[in-house]
Structures are given as C-alpha cells and as structure tokens.
C-alpha cells in the first residue's frame, strides 16, 4: 500500500517537474527567439553609449590676429536633490543652498525652493565663471556636480558688437558675422558609439565607432581692432555729449572695399544679450537708412563733371535759392552767395548750386549715376540684415525731385552705401563691394577673399578733380572743422531734415553727418559719421567732424600712414 502511494507521489513529482521543465523550456525558447532582440537591446543599452562629438565653433580674429570671438567650455552647475544627504541620510538641501547662495549671488531661499521643487535633476547655474566654479567645487557638497557646456566669449566686450553678432543658447549665430557665417563657423558635429563600464569609462576592448567632428572654420576679418575701438569711443562720446538718438560710423579702405570699422550707437554687450535693447542689436551702418543731405552734393557734382556738363570753374549767380518744378529751394538760412563756381558750391554747401548743377545734368543722368554709385540697392556686404535704401524709379520723380535729390533729400541711403560711393571717388572711380571677412581657414588651409570691383562709376580724372574740390571744402570751406595737422583731408558735411510719418519733415530736428577721406592725396581710409538728432541741431556737423578727426588721428597712427603735408 505504502509503495503504491509512494509511486503515485513520485509520478506526481515527476509530472510537476516535467510541466515546470516544459514551461521553463518554452520560456527559454521564447527569449532565445522572439524576445532575443529585446534582451539584446537591453544588454547593449547597459554598456553602449551613443555620444555627440560637438564641433568647435570657429574663432573670429581681426586683421592683426587679435581674438574677437572664441568658444570655451565652461562649467555648468547641476543638482541632484535626492543625493543631498549625509551618511545618516539627513536632508542637507537647506545647508547646500545656504553654502552656495553667496557665491552665486543668489538668495538661499530661491535655491532651497528649487531643490525642493521635486525635480530629480536641475541646472543651478549654467556656464559659470571659472573662479566661481572653483569656489563651489572646493566646498565638495553632496548632490552637486558640473557639466561642461560651450560658451561664446568676446574678449573685447561691447567693441564691434553689431558687426560680430552673437550666438544664442542653442549655439546658432545671430546677426552680424556670427549670423551671416553661422554655417561655416559652426562646423559639423561628430558621433561616437562606445561601450562603457558602470563608471561611464570607455572599455578599451569594447566596441568603438567614431565619426570625427569637423570643427568650424576660423575667420579673419578686415576690421582693425584699434580703429574699431577709436570709432566706438569717439561715437559714444559724441552721442552722449550731443544727446543724439543714435549714431553710426563706417571706416573703409577705398583701395579694395575692406571695412576697417563699423560702429553703431546704441550698442550692447554680447555677454548680456538677454537684457539688451532690441534696437541696440541693429547694425545701423547697414540696416538703417536716412536722407543724407549735403553729403550727396559731391555725388551730383561727380556725375556732372563726369558727364562733362560742368567744370570746377563753371559758375552761376547764387541768389539764395533756386526754382525748379515750380518750387523754390533755398540755401541753408537763405543765404545768397552771388557769383559761385562749382568748387564753391561744395565749399559753401549751397543748395541752389546743387540744383543748378543737377539742372545741367538732367534727371535721367542723375538717376543713372545714383544707381551706378550703388544707391537704391544693397552693397552686398557679407553681413546679415543689410537694407537697400531708396531711390525712387525715375518714372516716379516729380520735377522738383531733381533739385531735392541733388542735395540729398528725397532719397535714403545707408551709411555704408555713402561710404562705398565716397570710396569710389577716393580710389579713382571704381565701386568696390564692401567686405568684412578677409580670410577663412579650414583643414585645407587659408582661403582669402578676393576684393570685388563692381563697376567703374566715374573716370579717374573726374575722381581726382573731385578730391581736389573736396580738399578745398575742408581747407577753405564749410568742412574746415575736419582738417588734420600735416594730413590733407577731403570731405563734405551734411545736415538733413528728418521725414515724418505724414510725409512732411520733422521740425527742428536734423541728421548731421560728415563723409571724408584721408590723406586726400592718396586716400587710405574713407570715414562716414552720422549723428541722429544732435542737440546742436544745425551745428551738428561740428561734432560729426570731431568724431572724424578723433578716428582719423588714431587710425592714421596705428596704420603708420606718413603725413602728406609739411
């Protein structure tokens, strides 16, 4: 009897084991066939890491090799609140907050609230200065750690801010050179697939697949840091002294269109873009237009000289105004100069004289020359957000427009367009495309930007004649405030009214400017200075000329340009 029971139990036991074995076998077959991929994936995930190899953003330098922008990895502080405990598992979030708050310049309560917000992981402060990160690291607090993050730094602060642009938190260039050349500055990120140990260290014998990152290209600009600094210093001082709404400066090498300095006011610090006035982000030298006023007279006269309808000695009787299209256009303050030749038109900045010359030239030719000088279209400078200015189509001109445009009203230009036109006068008549990036360097070596001569605008003889006339304007005429000791200067002042939204001109507010070249005998630089609404009003050209003198004095010294006068 007992043997029978025992045998039954044995059979039961056997059956139990048999069923268990079948189940386990079925399970094993499942995992080895259908579930194999999932298991393999889980196992792989535990050891394999897919990392992005971040490409280094290119460095931007000035023409002398000074660093204008570079990227460095700074430490970002992160917190894991759950790990803020001591050995006895006491909560240390409060004491950690209290310890780092004064170093970060933050209130301890704010940090404590962040640590208690329920987040498992959070950034406390990103891209810390090295000294700050060192001080926090020295505390060796639990639950805190550092992670390296790239940051774009501009060692010269606000200098050339609008030209440079900036890089946002996503690493994308905005405005200026950073925006225009973002694609080649950024480079191409790489990829690294490796197997790691539990400490996140790569296994030397494990899988390793790498696609190397291609770093961004380095750029060398045509900007000269010393000239740029002088331009910003003089402009800021003039804007502050004159309480001007805005100001801008262009310094250009007329021999090839290379831009030596571009300054705009108001400006901003690229290190604090978030708090910058949006208007300050605008590069006013290329993205702001104004009616140029009398700085346009040399362009009108250049066209007339080149066309042969006047000579420097051609004269007329100035009665203080000119009538054209049934409208009377007066000189500034209504002054009558009597017999006046074309050179004296510039020296006295006579509006009636400009109308006289324009009448000789005709609307069609004036329009043709304006377009040839590059007005009404983009210069093509290699910066983001350039605007065109406005020269209305000839068909839309009223008869009076021939007169007003002759002295710079009724059209709008950017400071860079005016500088390019003056550069054509300075270099013998060729309009060059302005450019900012001189060279770019990649793995294949250095690539130099070739200057682009857009077109010949006026003859060399006309340009030489006009430079002589503009030199007289500085030496003996209205622009005498721009003269420099031992250097010849050619230039012209401009005082323009400001159009309002209703189509009329704003009362008692002006845009004052000066456009000049130095040394006049063989120009090495063209400088255009524009001040919007200076408090000196009609005398606003004087501070504009002072800005020119300050910039030219420094730039000539730094460029070691010898004087051309005893």
């Amino acid at each position: 009897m007992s043997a029978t029971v025992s045998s039954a139990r044995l059979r039961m036991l056997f059956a139990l084991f048999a069923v268990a074995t079948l189940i386990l076998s079925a399970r094993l077959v499942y995992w080895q066939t259908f579930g194999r991929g999932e298991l393999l994936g889980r196992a792989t995930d535990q050891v394999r890491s897919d990392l992005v190899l971040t490409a280094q953003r290119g460095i931007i330098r000035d023409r002398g090799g000074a660093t204008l922008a570079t990227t460095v990895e700074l430490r970002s502080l992160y917190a894991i609140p759950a790990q803020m405990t001591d050995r006895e598992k006491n909560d240390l979030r409060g004491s950690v907050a209290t310890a780092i708050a004064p170093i970060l310049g933050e209130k301890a309560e704010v940090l404590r609230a962040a640590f208690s917000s329920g987040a498992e992981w959070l950034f406390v402060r990103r891209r810390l200065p090295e000294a700050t990160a060192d001080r926090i690291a020295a505390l060796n607090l639990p639950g805190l750690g550092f992670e390296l993050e790239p940051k774009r730094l501009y060692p010269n602060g606000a200098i050339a801010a609008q030209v440079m642009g900036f890089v946002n938190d996503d690493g994308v260039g905005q405005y200026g050179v950073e925006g225009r050349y973002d694609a080649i500055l950024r480079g191409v990120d790489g990829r690294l697939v490796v197997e790691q140990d539990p400490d996140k260290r790569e296994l030397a014998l494990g899988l390793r697949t790498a696609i190397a990152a291609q770093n961004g290209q380095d750029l060398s600009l045509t900007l000269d840091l010393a000239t740029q600094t002088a331009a910003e210093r003089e402009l800021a001082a003039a804007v502050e002294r004159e309480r001007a709404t805005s100001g801008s400066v262009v310094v250009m090498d007329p021999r090839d269109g290379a831009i030596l300095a571009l300054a705009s006011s108001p400006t901003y610090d690229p290190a604090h873009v978030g708090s910058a006035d949006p208007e300050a982000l605008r590069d006013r030298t290329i993205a702001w237009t104004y009616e140029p006023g009398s700085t346009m007279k040399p362009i009108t006269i250049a066209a007339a000289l080149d066309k042969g309808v006047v000579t420097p000695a051609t004269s007329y009787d100035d009665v203080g105004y000119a009538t054209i299209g049934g409208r009377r256009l007066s000189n500034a303050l209504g002054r009558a100069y009597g017999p006046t030749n074309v050179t004296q038109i510039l020296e006295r900045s006579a509006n009636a004289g400009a109308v006289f010359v324009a009448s000789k030239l005709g609307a069609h030719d004036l329009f043709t020359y304006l377009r040839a000088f590059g007005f009404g279209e983009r210069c093509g400078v290699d910066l983001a957000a350039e605007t065109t200015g406005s020269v209305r189509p000839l068909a839309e001109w009223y008869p009076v427009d021939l007169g007003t445009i002759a002295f710079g009203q009724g059209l709008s230009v950017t400071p860079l367009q005016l500088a390019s036109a003056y550069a054509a006068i300075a270099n013998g008549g060729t309009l060059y495309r302005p450019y900012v990036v001189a060279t770019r360097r990649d793995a294949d070596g250095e690539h130099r930007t070739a200057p682009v001569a857009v077109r010949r605008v006026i003859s060399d003889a006309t340009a030489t004649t006009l430079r002589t006339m503009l030199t007289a304007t500085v030496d003996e005429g209205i622009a005498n405030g721009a003269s420099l000791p031992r250097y010849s200067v050619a230039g012209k002042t401009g005082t323009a009214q400001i159009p309002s939204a209703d189509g009329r001109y704003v009362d008692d507010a002006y845009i004052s400017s000066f456009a000049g070249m130095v040394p006049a005998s063989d120009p090495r630089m063209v400088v255009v200075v524009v001040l919007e609404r200076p408090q000196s009003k009609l005398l606003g050209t004087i501070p504009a000329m002072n800005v020119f003198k300050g910039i030219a004095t420094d730039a000539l010294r730094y460029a070691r340009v010898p004087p051309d006068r005893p």
Partner: protein
Amino acid sequence: MTVAQAVRAPRARRSHQRPLRGGHRPAASRSRAPASWEVRSFVVASLAIVVAFVLVLLYLAQATAVSAEGYEAQRLAAQRDELRRQNTLLEIESARLEAPARIEADAAKLGLVRAATIYVVTPEAIAARP
C-alpha cells in the same frame, strides 16, 4: 581507477607480462622501455591543460593590461582636454588684457595723455642727411 592507479598500473602489468630472463637487466635499459598509451595520453592531456592555462593567463594578463592602458589613455585624454580648455581661457584673458579699450581706460586712470604730435621722419629726409 584513480589517476595514481592509472600511473602505477602499466608498471605492474609489465612485470606480469614480461618476466625477467637470464638474470638482471641494467636499469638504463628498463627506463628506455616505451611508455604505454595511457602514460602518453596523460602527459599530452596534462601538457595541453597547462598550455591552455598559460594561454588563458597570458590572454587575461594582456586584456587586463590593455584595459588598464585604455583607462590611462582616457585619463590622459581628459587631462589634455582640460589643459586645452585652460589654455583657451588664458588666451581669452590675454586678449582681454590686450584690448585697446582696456589699455586706454587704464592709461587714463594713471593720468597718461595722448601724444599731441607724432614726428615722422620721411625717407627723403634721411637720404638728404650728410
């Protein structure tokens, strides 16, 4: 049969199967007697095990050395990256210190003023000197 028995057995069998003839034989000729297949296979197996063991040891030693060198290489790479980072920071600091705006500001604090006139000696003037 244990390993010891297996080793001893052939000698015991030899003594039964080949009795000594005509007195004693020299010890040297006894030792030159061919070993049985059991001895040979035991020796071969033992050698194979020892060789395999040594090979495994060599592999493990090499793998450990490679892993250790790999960790060392990573440590050195991290050190290199950190030095590069510090170098970049120093270059930035250098550029900041060399900035004309900073130099002008510091010069002004020291009470320095710009030179009013810079005298330039022209090549012609140098050539004209006796």
